[in-house]
């Protein structure tokens, strides 16, 4: 019962804040709501007994990505002006598409009899995660390293000040 109430709390936080992110007229407020939504998602990870993922979520999403977004908004500051129109003309069709897709998704995941296994998460799960990352999944791990290098170099080249 308590678990379910906590679930309701976190999911209301995530979904409610997400709605605010996409509808708020002030883009700066949207970005702040994004932080709230991401924290709500982190709460869901805790409920799912994945505390490590929850911490990484807070560090990367809340700590890094949201900060980047806030910086970008402040660097392009004319956009913080609340009078700027933020919605395009297709917003109504978009809303219908989104609601339609939601109904389809709920129906398709809802009709499945999920073969749920009732086991606890093993004690040493985190060790296992680290080990798998270095053995089983080492190739995507290395490729991600190249990806971060490429993104770093690319972002610097593109965002650098004019040289002349």
């Amino acid at each position, binding site marked *: 019962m308590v678990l379910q109430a906590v679930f309701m709390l976190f999911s209301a936080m995530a979904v409610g804040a997400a709605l605010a992110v996409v509808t708020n007229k002030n883009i700066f407020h949207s970005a702040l709501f994004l932080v709230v939504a991401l924290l709500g998602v982190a709460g869901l990870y805790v409920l799912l007994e994945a505390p490590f993922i929850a911490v990484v979520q807070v560090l990367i999403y809340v700590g890094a990505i949201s900060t980047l977004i806030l910086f970008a908004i402040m660097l392009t500051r004319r956009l913080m002006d609340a009078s700027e129109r933020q919605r395009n003309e297709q917003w109504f069709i978009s809303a219908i598409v989104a609601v339609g897709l939601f109904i*389809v*998704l709920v129906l*398709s*995941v809802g*009709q*499945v*009899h*999920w*073969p749920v296994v009732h086991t606890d998460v093993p004690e040493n799960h985190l060790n296992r995660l680290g080990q798998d990352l270095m*053995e*089983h*999944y*080492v*190739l*995507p791990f290395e*490729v*991600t390293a*190249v*990806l971060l*290098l*490429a*993104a770093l*170099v*690319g*972002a610097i*080249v*593109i*965002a*650098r000040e*004019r*040289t002349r």
Partner: protein
Amino acid sequence: MTTRTPFLFLPQLILLLTTLVVFGIELVPGDERRRKDWLPAIALTGLGGAAMAIIFLWSRTTTPPAGSILAGMIVVDRFALFFQILAVTTTALVVLLSTDYMRDRTPDQGEFYGLLLIVCLAITLVVAAADLLMVYVGIELLSLTSYVLTGYLREDRKSTEAGIKYFLFGATASAAMLYGMSLFYGATRTTNLAAIATALSEAENSLRGLVIPAAVFLLAGFGFKIAAVPFHQWAPDAYEGAPTPITAFLSVGPKTAGFAVLVRVFLIALPNFYPDWMALLSSISIITMIVSNLVAIFQTNVKRMMAYSSISHAGYILIGIVCWGRGGFGGSFEGISGVLIYLLAYLFTNVGAFAVITAFEEATGSSRIEDYAGLVSRSPALAWAMLVFLFSLAGIPGTGGFIGKLYVFGAAIQARAYTLAVVGIITSVIAAFYYLNLLRYVFFQPPTENPKSITLSATAKITLIVTCVLTLAIGLYAQPFLQLAQASANLW
């Protein structure tokens, strides 16, 4: 496994090492301008080394290979190696095209060639990926570097605009693709392609009901990479705004990678759902062929016209995938080898056409169709090369494009997919109209102004000769290329 695992990564290791050299060379003190002139040569050397390694592996690989490596993340089979060769060849030609074009346009030369090598590396990994996790990471590496290269000219309004549009579309498509992957993980508890097929054949019916929505989400991601309608909107903008050599790359590199992934994922992971995804892919193919060719007629910019042309070719190539099993492997036209021969011919033809466009832009600063008027009197070589490439794109006999179309349409007729074949042939005729219209300007319209003759640089000449010869070679003496495609068309 006869070849040891590290050897299977030899092409990738060579590419990575070259990338690091290219990145690092800026840090060496000394005369900066002279060092920059060396960058293309270093990149080409690395690509040549990688190509030799791939050919060596191709000759050593048995079909089917003894197994996949690194916990099933990657399969180095002849199919993958064929696509790796395409990637390395494309990148090498694009390096040649970039040598003059990028020299005056950006101060950041080292980073440019380094990122180009990383894109090539990404494609060589993606085409061999046998696990959705690897597919995802590979596609992201490919996409992120492509966005950067598209928006590379940071002081050029069109280039940054192309970059941002490409990025926003791409990131959305990859989020949708990921959602599909998460559903596959839920339905099968694995991300390995072969294991997904096994799990799905044993799964109960309600889980199987999840496969179609999940496959549609995956298609959003792959459709974006191959630029098929309705996931094509980014292409005209990105093609027009990107630096022209990068446009040449975008029209071939990500597209071939997308097709390789599409074929592997759908054939290996979802063979039991063939009727469902066949219907899905044929409708995408039909819409793509019709929409792109009709819109292409009205374009006034060559790069935009080539974008719609490139979208239309995605439609034709999809026919080959749709008509995969139905013709039977015993038939003389087989869908997948049709796809491979088509892509091979398309590579040389399209890069060649963009070599002409790049050379023309270098000389005149324009890419408007009407400015091509009287090109034949300004540079006969460019005009005749353009004739070869446009004939090949239109699928006129004697060129590589004809062989590609022959094989995919042949597969369609053999598989009794008459609708696809008929739509394909009719839209090819429509396409011939806009290709010939451009040729009309090149050969029969008098030059409007500034009728100076165009001189070609050495690298432009090399690119044009290589692409022209191979486009014609595939068309006139197709046998060895067909054998190569057929030998590579076997997925384990």
